[in-house]
């Protein structure tokens, strides 16, 4: 993957202050805007991006239905946000690190996590957070904004160790920008000038609290100015624009020009179509027709039109893609549902060497299971 023409990415002064209209490459129909440049991605990459966005959407639908059937626990849907997730994932190089939230299923997948691994924690399997070798993705961050200073620290560490070709990217929501950790993380990144890219997936809502009630700032990108770093707004439903902006930010993080600072705060403006999680009911706090305007700019439809217009996508290829996606999903669900976990594993990896006291506790649990059987543990409250 190569980067976009540098000239197209030079921020104008409004962008630099983070208050410009979100950058777009595709219009709402998926037509390339007259003043925009399509990122220099191969046809294969463009189609693969589309396929991943579609896979993400199908994954989301499947996960929600698995949750409704009681087969997985609470799930955080991403429909509407797949474009930004997939695009930031494509912008990363394999050696770059990703620090995702509980909603970044697609970004994790694109950066190397397999589908089954995404489902494992949802099935309650602790080993689900284990990261496959050679995949530079941290386990998802659930306490809000906690990944932000860690991303700065990791980037600093890589830089100190001379890994100048590695950047660290973390995602978070608009709500996260209210936490102290967000401000501390960006401030450190600015002060130490480390290769971090902060991507705010501004989906307009933090559970029930709208963006306007989260911060009195006009935009989220403009907060970057307070830390002396660059802030950029991009249409989060436009995968090509998100790709271009993220790619440029990663390049700059690794190799800034003379007067440039490495870190960037990207505000990807988008919308959460569905519930915050499967435990949430958005009808208590927002008008559902609000979603309709955003759906008109849907990332999947836009990419589909873009590719069809370019002659890269037809019904046959679409059918092929659909079939591949369904097979992958079915295999992932089956493999995870076949997995079991031994209760003794809760004692694993708490320390390097299990202290004596924990060995005793593990032995106690084992002897109770032997004596009473596993069913006795699952008797619930009346």
């Amino acid at each position, binding site marked *: 993957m190569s980067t976009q023409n540098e000239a197209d990415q030079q921020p104008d002064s409004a962008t630099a202050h983070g208050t410009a209209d979100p950058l777009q490459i595709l219009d709402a129909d998926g037509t390339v805007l007259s003043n925009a440049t399509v990122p220099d991605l191969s046809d294969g990459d463009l189609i693969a991006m589309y396929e991943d966005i579609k896979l993400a959407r199908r994954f989301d639908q499947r996960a929600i239905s698995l949750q409704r059937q009681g087969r997985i626990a609470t799930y955080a849907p991403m429909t509407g946000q797949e474009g930004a997730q997939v695009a930031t994932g494509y912008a990363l190089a394999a050696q770059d690190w990703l620090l995702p939230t509980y909603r970044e299923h697609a970004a994790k997948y694109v950066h190397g996590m397999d589908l089954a691994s995404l489902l494992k924690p949802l*099935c309650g399997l602790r080993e689900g957070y284990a990261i496959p070798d050679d995949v530079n993705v941290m386990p998802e961050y*659930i306490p809000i904004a906690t990944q932000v200073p860690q991303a700065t620290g990791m980037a600093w560490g890589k830089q100190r160790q001379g890994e100048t070709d590695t950047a660290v990217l973390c995602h978070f929501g608009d709500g996260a920008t*209210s936490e102290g950790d967000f401000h501390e993380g960006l401030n450190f990144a600015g002060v130490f000038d480390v290769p971090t890219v902060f991507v705010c997936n501004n989906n307009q809502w933090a559970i029930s*609290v709208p963006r306007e009630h989260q911060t009195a700032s006009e935009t989220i990108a403009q907060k970057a100015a307070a830390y002396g770093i660059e802030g950029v707004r991009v249409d989060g439903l436009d995968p090509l624009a998100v790709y271009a902006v993220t790619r440029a930010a990663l390049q700059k993080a690794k190799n800034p020009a003379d007067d440039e600072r490495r870190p960037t705060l990207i505000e990807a403006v988008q919308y959460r179509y569905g519930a915050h999680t499967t435990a949430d009911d958005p009808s208590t*706090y927002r008008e559902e027709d609000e979603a309709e305007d955003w759906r008109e700019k849907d990332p999947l439809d836009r990419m589909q039109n873009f590719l069809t217009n370019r002659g890269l996508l037809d019904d046959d290829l679409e059918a092929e893609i659909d079939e591949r996606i369904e097979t992958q999903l079915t295999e992932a669900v089956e493999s995870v549902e076949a997995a079991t976990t031994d209760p003794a594993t*809760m004692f694993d990896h708490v320390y390097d060497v299990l202290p004596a006291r924990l060995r005793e*506790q593990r032995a106690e649990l084992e002897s109770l299971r032997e004596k009473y059987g596993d069913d006795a543990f699952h008797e619930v409250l009346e």
Partner: protein
Amino acid sequence: MSSKSPDESTTPRDSQTESATETMNLVEAVRHALHTEMARNERVMVLGEDVAENGGVFRATAGLLESFGGERVVDTPLAESGIVGTAIGLAMTEMRPVAELQFMGFAYPAFDQLVSHAARMRSRSHGQYTVPMVVRAPYGGGIRAPEHHSESKEAFFVHEPGLKVVVPSTPADAKGLLIASIRDPDPVVFLEPKLVYRAFREDVPTDAYGTPLGEASIRREGSDVTVYTWGAMVHPTLIAADNVADEDGIDVEVVDLRTLSPLDVETVVDSFEKTGRAVIVHEAPKTAGLGAEIAATIQEEALLHQEAPISRVAGYDVPMPLHELEDYYLPQALRIQEGIREAVSF
């Protein structure tokens, strides 16, 4: 600034007075308590993430916005230190903030405000400034929640002088203890057992009663052994007590501490003097959990009554596992029964 206003004393409900009742589960009782106290005292306000429009992710504050308006029921930005810090400031102006932390596992960003400031404003200022506020947070496991949503770290707060820590286990107590907490002149951390939120209903008086803080409740009288517990663990403990009564003829006394700080040492010791045997049940990890404090207190105060080692049935010293294994982590009736039998057969 005065440290106490005339209407802040806790009026225990006179059990002789007839009062209307309504059947409620624990979360409804919390809501009812907030409603009752907000209607009575207009300085009471509720603030936190998603508490207003959404009525709280567990619906504990549902309907309050409609009744009391957006100035008293406030959705805050997503920032726990901000929520608790501003609540401290509000409390120092004689407002009565009831701050919600969405889950206890997300209390840590606010921990500094709680322990460095809320807890010691009274002593630092030699009584001149006080922080009469309540911080509510759902805690505990057993509901298949995601990571960080199931912890029970009450000991962190109990360790801090100046904070009160309250954990109800029933709807009627949840209401009475929450009202008393709001009226209390000190900062109170009010932990709600989410496993019990909707587990059962009971009749709850509808008047504005306060259940005094600092008093344990004897949930079941018995003579052979005392089990000390609180919050969600009261219920498997009562099941275990019935089981060992049926199967082994063991007569268990169950003490529900209700207030963890200050601890009701008198009830703890009296019960131990009666039974001579103690089992402490909590879902928090065993090491440095509150069980250790209770065992040490019994040793100090009633050693000569002791007839068996004091034992603890607790969570293991591991991070709370994801839901596939949480039944193995939490003390279930099974493990509590084992603990009781061991104490009695010593």
